[in-house]
């Protein structure tokens, strides 16, 4: 076999390259099976950073679909509940510049809101229940509905469908359990800033 190949240089060249290509192809095929990536791990990492309000303000049915399309190149500034801090974290993860929040999809509210149903006005139409992504509204047809405040993420989605406009978004009140000291004002921490402000 070797002698035959040595006497026919073109054949030996073709055979050698062909066998090499076959061997490497088999190796890559094996590696493709061995190192198969289940799903897209980057999607999981983005999904973990999103606030999981499932509010749909980004134009996707939930946080995971939005994480999926971010990994496919969509803008990362469409999440009002997460606000600027979430945008910064995702930008850090993806190693891109952090854009500011896209106002088209809603504004970031300074205080967390919770939905409140004025119960004597509620006609029991169940439309807000269907709109709620968190199943945070309790009620049945022709029965009064109410919001489970602990489950509500303040996403505003139930306000629009209500035919009698009996849902308010009210800021979450600070209680003894949730009260915290105010963060120090950054402009007063550095001595030179303080003198600059005085002058």
């Amino acid at each position, binding site marked *: 076999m070797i002698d035959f190949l040595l006497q026919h*240089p073109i054949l030996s*060249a073709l055979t*050698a390259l062909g066998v090499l290509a076959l061997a*490497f192809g088999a190796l890559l095929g094996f*590696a493709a099976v061995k*190192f198969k990536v289940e799903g*897209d791990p980057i999607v999981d*990492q983005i999904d973990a950073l999103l606030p999981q309000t499932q509010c749909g303000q980004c134009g996707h049915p939930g946080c995971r679909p939005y994480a999926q399309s971010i990994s496919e190149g969509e803008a990362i500034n469409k999440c009002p509940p997460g606000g600027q801090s979430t945008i910064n974290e995702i930008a850090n*993860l993806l*190693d891109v510049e952090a854009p500011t929040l896209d106002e088209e999809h809603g504004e970031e509210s300074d205080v967390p809101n919770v939905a409140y149903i004025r119960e004597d006005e509620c006609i029991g139409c169940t439309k807000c229940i269907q709109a709620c992504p968190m199943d945070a509204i309790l009620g049945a047809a022709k029965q009064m509905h109410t919001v489970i405040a602990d489950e509500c993420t303040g996403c505003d989605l139930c306000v629009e469908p209500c035919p009698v406009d009996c849902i308010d978004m009210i800021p979450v009140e600070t209680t003894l359990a949730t009260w915290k000291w105010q963060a120090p004002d950054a402009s007063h921490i550095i001595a030179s800033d303080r003198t600059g402000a005085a002058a």
Partner: protein
Amino acid sequence: MTEFFVILISTILVNNIVLVQFLGLCPFMGVSNKLETAIGMGGATTFVLTLAAISSYIVNTYVLTPLGLEYLKTIAFILVIAVVVQFTKMFIEKTSPLLYRVLGVFLPLITTNCAVLGIALQNTAKAHNFVQSSLYGFGAALGFSLVLVLFSAMRERLAVADVPVPFKGAAIGMITAGLMSLAFMGFSGLV
């Protein structure tokens, strides 16, 4: 033992693949904007270069030479390198998705990094044996990573430095690379 040490020193410093032989300049200029990316690229290139040097030595010694096909070594080595890079790509995608994303297009571009083919061809030209070949590849890759990391650290400083307007961006990067190359020329005569 001394011989191995000499090979390492000469590939890392004296005959540095980037700054003295001017091979692999594309990733050197392209992936040196951030230190972390440069370290990732250095690691990936080290892996590929060493593996490519070893496998091209094996292909050359056990397939091409016995059949008298040395004239095919360039195309055969390109095949070997492409396979090694593809393998590395799959491996990194599985083990470190973040590095995979950061390296992006530069990972497949290691295929066309002339340093990899250059090392494989130099190995055959210098008639290195197996250990010498792998050390030569590993040393060259270490040298590549070293200057890539040093250069990216300097470029991070340059990004905030007060550079005259005509020299901003890539221009000052080129000048810096030239000065680094001059400095590395100073190592000649060390071995």
